[in-house]
């Protein structure tokens, strides 16, 4: 009986494969954009301009405080109202990379603040400009501190990408949803979908744990 269903589910392998490709592509693209903007956010949040930091803080709070599903709806239904018409894919990328940037921004800011102030003072004393201080002294140390949390954030991003299936984007979760309409065995269908995510996420979780242990050892 199980084999009968498995055979039918694997009859849909092009859909599953396409969904897997979409999940990976969407996550990777959003990851790159999210990291770039997130580092910018982090530098501003940890920076000296109080007002800029506060305004950005409110923006970040909005996206950290509302469910990602609501944000996807905002990208898909509200942006057109102010004249930005997006395809489902573009809306997914915008929502996902924006949320990633907000979370990564706070991680980066915390990392920058964790670097002892003596480091940047020493950099000033040796005549470096602000940009040099950041690029050569503070940021490299901050990156070492935050790498485990960043990898953890990537895992969250991949998992959150499943939510874009709500606006009809054919990712891995949506593929499962479509297949279960004609193969009525949710346990098997979503077991396979889950396995797909597990294959992508589990190595990353492992990596994050290893990095964490190593960085703890480095500070002891």
């Amino acid at each position: 009986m199980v084999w009968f269903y498995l055979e039918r589910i694997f009859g849909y392998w092009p859909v599953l494969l396409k969904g897997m490709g979409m999940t990976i592509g969407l996550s990777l693209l959003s990851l790159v954009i999210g990291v770039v903007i997130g580092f910018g956010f982090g530098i501003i949040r940890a920076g000296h301009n109080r007002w800029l930091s506060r305004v950005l803080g409110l923006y970040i709070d909005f996206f950290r405080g509302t469910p990602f599903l609501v944000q996807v709806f905002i990208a898909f239904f509200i942006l057109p109202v102010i004249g930005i018409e997006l395809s489902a894919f573009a809306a997914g990328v915008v929502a996902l990379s924006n949320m990633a940037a907000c979370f990564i921004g706070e991680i980066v800011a915390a990392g920058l603040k964790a670097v002892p102030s003596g480091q940047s003072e020493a950099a000033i004393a040796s005549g470096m400009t602000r940009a040099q201080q950041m690029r050569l002294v503070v940021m490299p140390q901050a990156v070492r501190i935050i790498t485990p949390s960043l990898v953890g954030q990537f895992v969250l991003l991949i998992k959150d990408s499943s939510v874009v299936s709500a606006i009809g984007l054919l990712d891995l979760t949506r593929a499962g949803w479509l297949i279960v309409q004609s193969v009525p065995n949710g346990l098997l269908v979503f077991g396979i979908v889950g396995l797909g995510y597990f294959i992508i996420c589990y190595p990353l979780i492992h990596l994050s744990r290893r990095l964490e242990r190593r960085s703890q050892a480095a500070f002891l």
Partner: protein
Amino acid sequence: MLGGLNTRVMMEYLPEIWQGFLATLFLSTVGFVGAMALGVLACALTIQPLRWLRAPAVIYVDTIRATPLLAQLYFLYFGLPRLGIVLPEMLIGIIALSLNSGAYMAEIIRSGILSIPRGQVEAGMSTGLSYMQRMRLIVLPQALRTTVSPLIGQAIVLVKDSSLLSLISVVELTRAGQRIAIDRFMPVEGLVATALGYLMLYYALKSAAGAWQARNSIPGRG
């Protein structure tokens, strides 16, 4: 940009939004209690020495952490009827939320317990305290101080995650906001009302976590 917000319609739907808000609060609270129970159990199983008891807990935590909540939700929603178990959507949602957050809570509690310096436990041993006494008098009181904030952080995640239950047609805050979008064709008004509801819960929990942190942080240990 949102100058044309139709506040009259928002006020008209206020009772429904409020109902949705209460439903979200209810789902999150019940989910939190269930997740706490699962988290404590899974954590207790992972830190005790018997391997055959540890394995299921580790598999549970890792499987949950490596798959999205939405897939877990659909797994139960489409899968349970297959096993002849027919439950109301709301209950399925609460089970999924508890199972999901429970795994993260197990990790939070575990890292809280493991963060207690070894010397503390050894000092307890040398003064002749039993295992239970060491746990109760030395380890847990200190672990509690450091885990409450991350646990509240997980509660924030849980509140936000509960919005996914709208996708299996549980009526909560997100779904209530969609009513305005569908009935009146006003997605902006619906989403603004929804977002405001979640932000209220977010700021309440966030300031609670901050207040606890300020009062209970252990000197010299962040």
